């Protein structure tokens, strides 16, 4: 039987009369909402705000690095700029990016529930995020922090007089926001699935978020207590992390990275979750090796807890322990490889089209592969000695975080934009933006690998002149990249008013969320659906649409 899906012509689509967007009006109806879809939108707006701030800071970093001396700003200003860039981008942008916006919006829809398990906690989580953001912003406005995003002790505890505690408080709050998001997801996935929705009928998007949530609830509290200790140590001049008082600075590193390594998987798993959906949809094909992809998410989450020490290889940890952690790091890289290969195989014998989300997804595949494989460089003990703390690392993590997760985030935003707003984004310009982003990205961050191998240290406001040429490339690339990111920020709001009406299922995708109206009703489903087929079942969809066409026609 054919799996070609044909839906009624999009041109005839109408915006639904009633949806979660027009259910209620007024600021209050948004700020006190329990609706996961509205909270997702609140998150979307707030993280975009922080992304712009982080992006402007990135622009300042690149401008400063255009020339070797620290001429644009003083060194301590530069230090504050990259610290705030890191803190904002990681804790206020990338960690909540996909889960708190797209995930929040979609997980109930995908498991067939009316809302997340705890709507009020979901709202609380947004408020915590905002409070955290306000703390970080006030730290910035009051004069900034210059610890780097890693808060290395004893520098952060005894040698700086900037607003470390304020920023730490902000991260503490944002951390609890992410704990609550994770908690909500886990409970929802376990307890709110609709009848017939077995674990292996869940879309891979849900699996990815499930794995993410595990890390969120188990890792984040350790960061929280660590930051509390840092704050106490600063205010009371205690010495848990200070060797002159008998403490151990490496203990901080252990506790910090116990969270922050798994956190990098918080920052990639949701992106991978998006990619599964996008690739399947635009090749009209079930994801190759569904179970392998699903389990590799969980494997990444679990193994992710076993490798944190690879950030400390030259910091004086025991060499035997370094061996153990290097080995574990090699193991944790394998599930990512499995995913990449499965996605590539999904294309095989598909029926592929190249809409914007798919372009971003292709970008993800290439850039994440580079970023991930350069992670192997760093996991290789002897190589890490030379590469650590250089621009090689900066390039590595921008490849996985910006080239990987940010691309996936943009793919996701474009992919579900019609579902969230009921309108299409403009296709041609968005494709251009995707291509610009890709080119800009390569020009910005590829030279940094070379810089890193040359030995240029990270977090340098001034650098020897030998490194200039590559830095100029990088800055030039960042300008292109900035345009690439600016475009969606312009045309997406534009499309809210002028975009084409999307209709229920513009991509002819199989997910439950596409079978309901867009934008959805406040209660999501008129009646709780019953799941009677696997995820990505295009036969089912073709069947259903035929049936629909008949009844309509």
């Amino acid at each position, binding site marked *: 039987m054919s799996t070609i899906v044909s839906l009624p012509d999009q041109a005839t689509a109408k915006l639904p009369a009633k949806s979660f967007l027009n259910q209620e009006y007024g600021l209050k109806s948004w700020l006190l909402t329990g609706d996961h879809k509205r909270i997702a939108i609140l998150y979307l707006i707030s993280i975009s705000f922080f992304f712009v701030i982080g992006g402007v800071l990135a622009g300042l970093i690149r401008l400063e690095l255009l020339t070797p001396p620290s001429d644009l700003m003083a*060194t301590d200003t530069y230090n504050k700029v990259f610290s705030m860039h890191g803190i904002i981008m990681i804790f206020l942008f990338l960690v909540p990016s996909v889960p708190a916006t797209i995930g929040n919006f979609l997980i109930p829809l995908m498991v067939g529930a009316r809302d997340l398990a705890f709507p009020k906690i979901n709202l609380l989580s947004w408020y915590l995020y905002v409070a955290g953001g306000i703390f970080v912003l006030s730290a910035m406005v009051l004069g900034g922090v210059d610890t780097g995003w890693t808060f290395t002790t004893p520098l952060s505890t005894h040698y700086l007089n900037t607003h470390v505690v304020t920023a730490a408080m902000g991260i503490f709050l944002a951390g609890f926001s992410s704990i609550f998001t994770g908690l909500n997801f886990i409970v929802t996935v376990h307890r709110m699935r609709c009848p017939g929705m077995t674990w292996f009928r869940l879309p891979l998007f849900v699996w990815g978020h499930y794995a993410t949530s595990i890390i969120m609830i188990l890792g984040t509290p350790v960061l929280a207590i660590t930051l509390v200790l840092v704050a106490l140590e600063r205010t009371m001049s205690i010495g848990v992390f200070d060797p002159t008082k008998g403490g151990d600075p490496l203990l901080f590193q252990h506790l910090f990275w116990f969270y922050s390594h798994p956190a990098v998987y918080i920052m990639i798993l949701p992106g991978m979750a998006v990619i599964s959906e996008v690739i399947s949809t635009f090749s009209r094909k079930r994801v190759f090796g569904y179970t392998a992809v699903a389990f590799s998410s969980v494997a990444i989450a679990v193994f992710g807890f076993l490798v944190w020490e690879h950030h400390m290889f030259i*910091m004086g940890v025991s060499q035997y322990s370094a061996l153990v952690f290097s080995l574990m790091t090699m193991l944790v890289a394998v599930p990512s490889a499995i995913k990449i290969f499965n996605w*590539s195989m999904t294309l095989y014998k*598909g*029926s592929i089209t190249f809409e914007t989300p798919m372009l971003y997804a292709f970008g993800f595949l290439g850039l994440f592969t580079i970023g991930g494989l350069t992670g192997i460089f760093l996991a290789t003990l002897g190589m890490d000695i030379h590469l650590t*703390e250089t621009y090689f690392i900066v390039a590595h993590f921008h490849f996985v975080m910006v080239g990987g997760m940010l691309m996936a985030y943009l793919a996701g935003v474009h992919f579900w934009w019609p579902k969230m707003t009921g309108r299409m984004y403009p296709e041609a310009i968005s494709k251009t933006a995707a291509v610009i982003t890709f080119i800009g990205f390569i020009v910005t961050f590829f030279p940094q690998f070379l810089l890193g191998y*040359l030995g240029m*240290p*990270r977090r340098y406001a001034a650098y020897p002149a030998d490194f200039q040429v590559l830095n100029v490339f990088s800055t030039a690339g960042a300008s292109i990249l900035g345009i690439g990111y600016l475009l969606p920020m312009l045309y997406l709001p534009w499309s809210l008013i002028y975009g084409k009406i999307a209709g229920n299922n513009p991509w002819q995708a199989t997910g439950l969320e596409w079978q309901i109206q867009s934008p959805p009703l406040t209660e999501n489903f008129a009646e709780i659906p019953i799941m009677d087929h696997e995820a990505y079942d295009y036969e089912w969809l073709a069947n259903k649409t035929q049936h629909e066409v008949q009844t309509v026609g």
Partner: protein
Amino acid sequence: MSHISPVLWEFLVHWLKNFAIFPPEASTIAPYADALYFALVGMTVTGLLLVMTMVLVFAIRYRQERHPEAVQIEGSTLLEATWTLIPLGIFLVFFVWGALLYFRVFNAPPNSMNIYVVGKQWMWKVEHQGGQHEINALHIPEGVPIQVTLISQDVFHSFSIPAFRVKREAIPGRYTTVYFQATTPGKYHLFCTQYCGTNHSQMIGWVYVMTPADYRAWAAENTSGASLAQNGERLFASMGCNACHSGNASARGPNLANVYNTRIRLTDGSTVVANEAYIRETILNPSTQVPAGYAPIMPTYQGQISEDGLIDLVEYIKTLDSNYRIQQTLNKSELSSAQASTVGVGKTPPPQGAAKP
């Protein structure tokens, strides 16, 4: 070409002169590191090409115009196993390879010459055995295995010489070591790569690799007149250490002669090798490791001796290799400076396992 504006031309020339894409290879470690690097680059390129070919070929062959109806495929256990095991195998090869290199860099051969480096916000203080002190510069002879023993006076710093492909963190409160052997005379970058506060980017300097002859000349010219051990000897007297560690049978503290690098039995029954770390630690926190048979009466010197002073003391105690009375050694402390300056090269006893587990 002639139409290019002169300003732009200047600019381009300046650029191209400053264009480097590969660091010089100037130590015995560098070729090993580069070999590993190129192998890894090879892996990345292969992996990337593999993925890109799959994606591009499929994207072109199975685009909707050519292939309007997708063929649904469940998956394949065989393929899953392939792309689990092959990357795993490759990664494991790199794990072993990298581990070998790591142990090579961090464990110096026994005949290395030891140089102390103290990091502080924001400079590197280098102390050679012969009493040469340098700031933000390191002069070393080529072809001699060198072990740098690092410590920080305040926050984490990181001692990085890209041309040698080595780097090691200087940690407050603890010695770490790194080993290299320079191969080509020249001038190389020395960086602090661990973020350490405001002037982190100014904590840079140069490594000068010299021929052994040049190095000897430099060392003779630049010595401060007293070797580290001699400074330590003075400090030993002025801090009152010899009041208890006089070497007499009646002394309240243990005799320190020949203590270095021996196994010490502690009161709690465990044993410990008296390496640099141990000596430093007993001076600062004497009661954490009390040798069997002694009461923990030694006062702590935490906060009274700088890291440089500690290094001097450690060096002094290391050289106490016979059982003579300490008072006597104090009398003959006026060694000639020329003698002192040669102490360094290849003659010091191997500093065993300052960072060994």
